[in-house]
């Protein structure tokens, strides 16, 4: 029993409920939400530290014992994800202060921002498949509102697709839950894992596994279910796009990791081959679509998809090094992808456009913006000594060790294309002669826009320079999730 596990879920929930009452006081909302986010960040750091010190922490809600009641479980992987979500939450909030319009603030931006984080953190920490569904819904309903607020024609059309595909996924999730409950008689993750170990992973269990994979694939934007993502992430303003691009798809990826390392691990030759094929296709098609684009934000949204391919590749190879590389890649991607979206927002605010062909010469007028963007762009392309290099290095190395040469080749080629499209952005936006007059941008203060991005840049550099201690921690995380018995024992206490 340890209530620390609950804090990352409860703090944003309470904050969201209180902020509804103060919708007409934007200044009060800003100050209090900033304070709450910092408290939440502290709570997540505390959670990671205590899990690192004491092993997996669980809390049985309402004091009902494990397989019957609802449990929240904080293991290293979950608490690391919670920490990432808090970091993204803090920085995107501070970025939102600079970029969000007054109308949005009035229409419950801050409450739903916090409800979204409640859902995200809850999905990471829950130890129960049905509550994963519930927290998914909390997250999705908040994201519907954040995407659709503003109500332009484009937003309404794209968010309609987003809503429909997600409701379809939720129904399918419920059907998969019914299958699993019918097979095992429980929805507690640890208990399901135990039951499936006993009954063996036969045909019906594989059916349920693939159904869950489809559901999480829709949420996490895997091939061929990613088509809803680019347009719907394009609509909302940069602060929300950064939060969504950095975080929301990773919730789907997290759920795939959780289920396919804890529960469905007895028929790897089938399930993880499916994952491997999906990973390769996701990487290739995502990056090809990105290369074809000439829109700053669109390139980034398509890159979300191709980067997810790398994470699933690590899971599919399924050796400790590969899984560690995948987790490293998740951490790296949350950090860098959110930063890139904020750069897109900042350049949009300066130039008034997202079209690469209409921008040029920002290097002369805004050198700080240019070089900070350059750092995160080469980081996502995987250039040493930044964080992106080490995650891809681990993935490629483990692929070679496992003698899966095709996926390694795919990963490397996709890396080249990533570098190409990032450089394309850099050349179009920052090189050339300045297209803007001084009077066009002098009223926009750059420093407050860049301040929230700086922590991300520091993180990506630090994760590269101090790769050894970071990687040791992530290796520990990977070892923990690759041994389901640790998780099962912690929850069921045997």
């Amino acid at each position, binding site marked *: 029993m340890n209530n620390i596990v*609950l804090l990352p879920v409860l703090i944003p*929930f309470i904050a969201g*409920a*209180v902020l*509804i009452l103060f*919708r007409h006081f934007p200044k009060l909302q800003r100050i209090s939400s900033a304070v709450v986010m910092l408290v939440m960040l502290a709570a997540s750091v505390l959670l990671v530290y205590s899990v690192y010190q004491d092993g997996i922490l669980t809390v049985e*809600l309402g004091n009902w014992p494990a397989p019957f009641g609802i449990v929240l479980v904080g293991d290293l992987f979950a608490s690391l994800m919670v920490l990432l979500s808090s970091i993204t939450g803090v920085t995107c909030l501070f970025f939102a202060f600079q970029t969000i319009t007054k109308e949005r603030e009035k229409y419950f931006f801050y409450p739903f921002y916090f409800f979204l984080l409640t859902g995200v953190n809850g999905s990471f920490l829950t130890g129960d498949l049905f509550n994963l569904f519930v927290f998914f819904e909390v997250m999705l309903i908040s994201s519907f509102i954040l995407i659709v607020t503003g109500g332009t024609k484009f937003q309404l059309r794209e968010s309609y697709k987003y809503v429909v595909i997600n409701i379809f996924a939720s129904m399918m999730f419920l059907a998969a839950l019914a299958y699993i409950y019918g097979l095992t008689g429980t929805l507690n993750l640890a208990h399901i894992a135990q039951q499936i170990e006993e009954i063996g992973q036969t045909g019906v269990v594989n059916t349920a596994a693939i159904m869950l994979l489809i559901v999480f694939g829709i949420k996490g934007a895997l091939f061929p279910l990613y088509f809803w993502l680019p347009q719907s992430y394009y609509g909302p303003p940069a602060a929300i796009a950064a939060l969504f691009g950095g975080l929301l798809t990773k919730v789907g990826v997290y759920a795939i990791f959780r289920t396919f390392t804890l529960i469905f691990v007895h028929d790897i030759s089938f399930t993880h081959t499916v994952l491997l094929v999906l990973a390769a296709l996701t990487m290739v098609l995502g990056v090809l679509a990105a290369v074809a684009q000439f829109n700053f934000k669109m390139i980034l949204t398509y890159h979300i998809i191709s980067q997810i391919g790398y994470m699933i590749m690590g899971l599919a190879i399924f050796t400790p090094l590969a899984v560690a590389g995948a987790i490293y890649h998740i951490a790296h991607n949350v950090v860098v992808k959110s930063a890139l979206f904020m750069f897109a927002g900042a350049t949009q605010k300066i130039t008034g456009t997202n079209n690469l062909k209409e921008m040029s010469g920002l290097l002369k007028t805004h050198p700080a913006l240019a070089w900070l963007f350059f750092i995160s762009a080469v980081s996502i392309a995987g250039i040493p000594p930044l964080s992106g290099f080490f995650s891809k290095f681990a993935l490629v190395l483990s692929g070679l060790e496992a003698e899966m040469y095709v996926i390694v080749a795919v990963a490397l080629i996709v890396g080249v294309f990533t570098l190409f499209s990032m450089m394309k952005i850099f050349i179009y936006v920052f090189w050339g002669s300045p297209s803007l007059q001084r009077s066009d941008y002098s009223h926009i203060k750059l420093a407050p826009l860049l301040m929230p991005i700086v922590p991300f840049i520091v993180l990506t550099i630090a994760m590269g320079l101090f790769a050894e201690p970071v990687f040791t921690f992530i290796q520990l995380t990977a070892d923990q999730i690759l041994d389901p018995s640790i998780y099962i024992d912690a929850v069921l206490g045997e």
Partner: protein
Amino acid sequence: MKTNFLMLHTITRIVSFIVLSFSVYLFFAGHNAPGGGFIGGLMMAGALILLYVTFDAERINRVLPFDYTAIIAIGLLLAIVTGLNSYLFGDPFLTQYFEYYQIPFVGEVELTTALPFDLGILLVVVAVALLTIISIAEDVS
């Protein structure tokens, strides 16, 4: 020409009271028997919506001058804070406490912390249902 819904008005005056009192009964029945905050709240919302349909919205808004948005927030907070009080005793979140008390004239009564939690749920359900329907109705006119 103003239509006169005499039957509807007369019946609603009686029926809404029956429904409202039954919703209160359901609310208190919860926790040990079928009922509770959610179902009680839905029934209460049903009764209030019947009032809105029968009499015009302006009149009901005068009788029930509540800001439903605020009620949602208050209901949520009430439910969370009830769950949080278990932190004081070092128990997991949402642990419930109950005790039996002798109250004069009423007899033995069970007081539990599940009750304020349920009240929070009731407030949220009533406010969400009413807010949704009223917003849609006002949108048309």
